[in-house]
Each structure stands twice: as C-alpha cells, then as structure tokens.
C-alpha cells in the first residue's frame, strides 16, 4: 500500500481497510434527520413543504443541511460544547473566505488542487468521484476515487485544510446511495474519469440531478459483504441463495423505526436552524462572490479559445 502523507492527503491504492474515521451515523447520513419529513436524501422541496405546514416560516432554507452538512456538530452529547462549536464555525467561515468550497455530494466528480512539497510544481491536482463524505466541523473531509494507469487510486482530503488550494466541481450530481465505497469492488470503468475533464455547468436554480446508474461489481471476494447493505446503486450481485438468506437473517429492518436511535444520531431541526441563522448571512455572501467569479470564468473561456 503506497501511503503518502503530507498533512491532508493519503493516497490509497486499491487495498485498504481504512475509514473508521468516518462516522456512519450522524449528520452525514442526511436521510435520518429527525422531525423533518424524510426527503429521500435527495430532493429538498419536500422538506421545505414539511416545515411550512407547521405555520412557522423558516428564516434560512432547510436545504442548508445538505449543502453545508459540516456546520452541524457531532450529535454525540458527551462531546458537545456550545462555545467550542461556535469557535469552530468562526474558524470555518474564516477559511471559507480564502477558498471556495462548493456544493457537492457523494457521486459528484471533483477536481482538487492542493499544495504538495513533493510535487514538481509544488502543487498537485486530482480528479475523481466523491465516494464518501463525512466529519463535522473542521474535521470535514471527503474521499475522491479514480482509476489511473489501471490502478485504483483514492485521495483523502480535509475540506478545511489550508493546504487545499482549489476545489472544483466538474459534474454536480447525486447517486442512489449515501456512500459509494462499493466502487472499490466494481469494474474499473465505473470509477474512471478523464483528468482533463471539462466542468459541466447546471442552469441556475436547477435541482441537482440524480444519476440512477447501477454499477456491476466484480465477482467475490469483496472488501465488504455488499449483499447485506441494501444498496440501490448496484446490479444483481449474482450470488448463491444462501448469501441472501444469511443477509435476511442478520438484517435489522426494525431499526428504521427506532425513534430514539434517530434522535441520538441527529441534530434536531430547531437546533439546526439556530446554527444556520448564525452563519447563513456570511455563507450567502461567499456564495454570491462565487457566482460572480463563475460568471467571469464562463465569460472568459471562449475568448481564450479564440
């Protein structure tokens, strides 16, 4: 395993039993938020309606929690402290003034440029699909995956690391699952992306498209027992019957009705609103700046080509 650490980056070449650092519960699992109707982790319009039904007009749009999930703190009660969370948010906004961290989701294709003292020009750019996103506050991070020279490569980036110079979204889309770790066991064409890929711009105000692609996995052995994970984005696994039987035995279908579990693993909507009211105006300003820059970029490009 080639492991090359310089602050933020770890290159992980195809065999890696990592990622205990990603909490599977918590605000990363967008679909399990309490007291808001479940927006299937995707569309935010339903959530908006649910809020207005109560007769209380939200001050900040509710999709904030999908666009800026890292502003919500870790829901573990014994790790919480309001002052720490406040200072953390202040630091995050200060960093966001220097780097544009765009809206992206698991399944989007990103290009990250980061300073790298070992690279020939002291910076390196990596293009890949986001297969996992997690962490709260300044620990927020994501993993990009690509296949380069027939070799699967994954890069771990911390969003608020000052070594990251630029994060570009080349294709903004979502997938059917909250994590795409199964791409490690999928055929390489599903995680191969051109390094010189052109960014695709969505029209203003358009909803984020969901890519309904179903991935074909390689035959076993796998890194995980994917048949037990209720994945929506994979084709028929083609396993013998006993695998599905066992999966049905160990399944816990009742857990989705466990209200206390959901409550402990999420930040209540009222608290979310409090947090976003505090940071929303600044985030909005940064967003406006970003749009201006984007317009300038789109305007400049044809000139250069000519």
């Amino acid at each position, binding site marked *: 395993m080639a492991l090359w650490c310089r602050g933020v980056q770890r290159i992980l070449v195809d065999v890696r039993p990592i990622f205990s650092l990603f909490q599977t519960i918590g605000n990363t699992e967008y679909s399990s938020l309490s007291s808001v109707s479940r927006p299937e982790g995707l569309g935010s319009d339903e959530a908006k309606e649910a809020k207005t039904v109560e007769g209380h007009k939200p001050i900040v749009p509710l999709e904030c929690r999908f666009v800026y999930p890292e502003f919500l703190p870790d829901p573990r009660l014994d790790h919480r402290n309001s002052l720490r969370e406040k200072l953390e948010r202040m630091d995050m906004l200060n960093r966001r003034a*220097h780097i544009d961290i765009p809206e992206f989701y698991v399944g989007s294709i990103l290009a990250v440029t980061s300073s790298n003292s070992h690279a020939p020009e002291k910076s390196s750019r990596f293009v890949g699909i986001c297969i996992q996103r997690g962490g709260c506050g300044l620990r927020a991070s994501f993993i990009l995956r690509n296949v380069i020279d027939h070799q699967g490569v994954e890069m771990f980036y911390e969003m608020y690391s*000052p070594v990251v110079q630029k994060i570009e979204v080349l294709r903004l889309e979502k997938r059917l699952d909250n994590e795409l770790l199964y791409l490690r066991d999928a055929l390489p064409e599903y995680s191969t992306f051109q390094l010189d890929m052109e960014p695709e711009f969505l029209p203003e105000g358009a909803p984020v498209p969901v890519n309904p692609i179903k991935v074909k996995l390689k035959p076993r052995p796998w890194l995980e027992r994917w048949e037990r994970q209720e994945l929506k984005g994979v084709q028929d696994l083609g396993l013998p019957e006993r695998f599905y039987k066992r999966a049905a035995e160990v399944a816990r279908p009742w857990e989705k009705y466990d209200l206390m579990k959901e409550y402990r693993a999420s930040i209540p909507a009222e608290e979310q609103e409090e947090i976003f009211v505090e940071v929303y105006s600044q985030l909005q300003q940064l967003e406006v700046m970003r749009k201006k820059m984007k317009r300038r970029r789109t305007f400049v490009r044809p000139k250069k080509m000519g």
Partner: protein
Amino acid sequence: MAGVGCSVRGYFLPLRVARNVVKGSICCLFQQQVRGAKHLNYPRLRNPIWFVRKERTKYEEHLTPENKSFIQEVIHDKYGPPTVIGGISTYKQSPLKLQPMERGSWFPGCRRTGVIARKIGIYPMWLKDGTRVLTTLLQVLDNHVIRYIPPEEFHPPRTSVRNPKSKQQLGCLLVGAESADPQTFTKEYCGLFKDSGVMPTKILGRFLISPEAAVQPGTPLYASHFKPGDYVDVRGKTVYRGFQGVMTRWGFKGGPASHGVTKTHRRPGNIGAGGGKARVWPGQKMPGHMGNRYRILYGLEVLRVNTKYNVIWVKGPAVAGETNSTVYIYDTRLPLRKLKETPHFPTYYPEDDDPLPDDIYSENLHPFTAPTITYEENA
C-alpha cells in the same frame, strides 16, 4: 535499638520509662519493656482551612416571589452584575477596590499561579508548514483570586519526606472559578470568600506559588495569563471506566479467539512464579478500577489564545478528562520547556497594556484567516 529510640523521643514515653531516664539508669531502659504506642496519636493529616462543608441542605423556605426577587437584589447589590455573560467577561476595569498588592518581579524558576479551566473539545488546526495537529480547547472560566496564604502561615498537610522540618518555601493561592448563587452554599463556605469580595464559586482550587508571585485577592485571571508559545502542564481527572479487565486496563493481549480455546479469551494468564517465591510480586498488573484519578499531562505547547472568550488551544488531544470537565493549567515544570522570558507577572492585568487582539497565534501556527499555504520552489 529500642532504648536508643526511646531516649530520642523521651517526652512521648510512658511515665514509668521517663522516670527511669531522669534517674539516669540507662541500663534499666534496656530492660524495661515498653508497651503501647511509642508516640502520641496526633492526626498526621489536617484538612486545609478551605475544606469546609460546601453544599447546603435544601428545604422548602416558603418564600414569596417578592421575597425571592428581593434576595436576588441583595445579592446583586453586594456582588454586582455577573462577571461573565455568554462566555465574555463583563469587566470594563479592574474590580479591585483596595490598592493592589505590590507586584514582585519575575526570575527564572519563579512559580506563578495557574488557572482553572474547562476542557471544551478537540479540533484540528494546521501549522505553517501544512502539518495537521489536534488541539485541545481549554476555556478559562471566570477565575478570581480568593486568598493568598504566605509561606509562614501555610502549613500543608503533607511535608517533605526527606526534610520534614524544612522551611515552607511556597505560599498558597486560592483561586475560585464559576460564580454561583450564594444561597446554594453553606455559611462557612461563603465565609471563605468574604475578604476577597468575590461571589462564592462552584470550584475552589489552590496553587502553590513563590511569594513574589502573590496576587491581590479579588483579581480576575484570564486566558492571557499564558502566551502562545509557552508550555503548560494540565491536570485533570481521567475518564472513569469502572472495573476493567487486564486487556482494557493494561493493554494485555488476551488469548486466542478460537482453536479450541475455552474461557481464556481475555484472561491475564500467569501472574507469578512458583518455586521458592511462591507469591505474587507487588505491582503485578491485574484487573481493577480504571480512571477517575488526577493525572498531569506535562509540557503542552500553547498554540493560540482567544482573549474574548478566554480560550486556550494546547497542542495534543490527550488532556485527561471528558469534554466539559474541569482542568488546572500550570506553567510547565519540565526543565527544558520552562519559561525563559518574563511572562505576564504575577498575572495578566488588562489595564496595564493596550487591549490585546481577539486571537493571538503561536508563530508556527497557521491562522484560518491567513491565505492558503503554498510551498516555495527552491531552485
């Protein structure tokens, strides 16, 4: 041997033996059988003066709402407005009514007071070279000096083992943190705070200081007591894990999970040799209570200080205790990381200098307000 011991501590002896000593018949002393205690049974450990009953029995006082508000008014008149609101100190100027004590001057090896803080969490920060470091945030609560006991009057319960009659070198400074409604405490406890004029506090700690570093009671202590780049020791109570086995408590390997092993997956194995010894050596690592002890983590670097919210960022994630637990911060005792330049002495007084910036960073720490780190290409 017994006789020699007796003559040294003659006045502790039973009367009969003492009379023999007076007669001068030393040979009798050796024959005399001494029964009973060989010294007066005085208590070795005395509780310090501030160890008084703190909590009060709460009972129904049948107070009308008017009475309650009147009590609150009296408290407000006596102690003034709360010293900290929303984490921010409300002091515009020094709250001291008396002329402050004459300030000593710092010298290498001088021991300053420490502060009482709360561990509020851990988050990453980055150094100027791009290295990620985990930092622990310690919020300095509304600390006030309650009392100074000079070395002559300070009799600590435990004296030096090597030289029990040595002169006490260090004085004692009582520091309180987190003011609370005096009605929740006993009269005796509130009495400790009378001279300082400070509202009784939930936490009361003591720091041993050099007499030169004495601070006037009533003085508030701030996070800026420490500067970024200083090294500190942090004392906290470790997380209580209850009764734990050897794998959790001492990191033993345990036994194999399978291959015919029964009931020996997490056991310690052999605990001692047989043969002539046939016993367990003292200090053998065994199961038992784990955590809930005071532990000091030495030599942590102060990376950043926030003067508005009184928060100190120290390097490292291993400060003892849970989030929101109380810790004590001292100047480090490690010889190579001790203070080399004059610190704020005896503590930081806001009225002395120009107001400090909200955030003070260590030289090698990357502030989030600074632009992205880039590496120079050296040709």
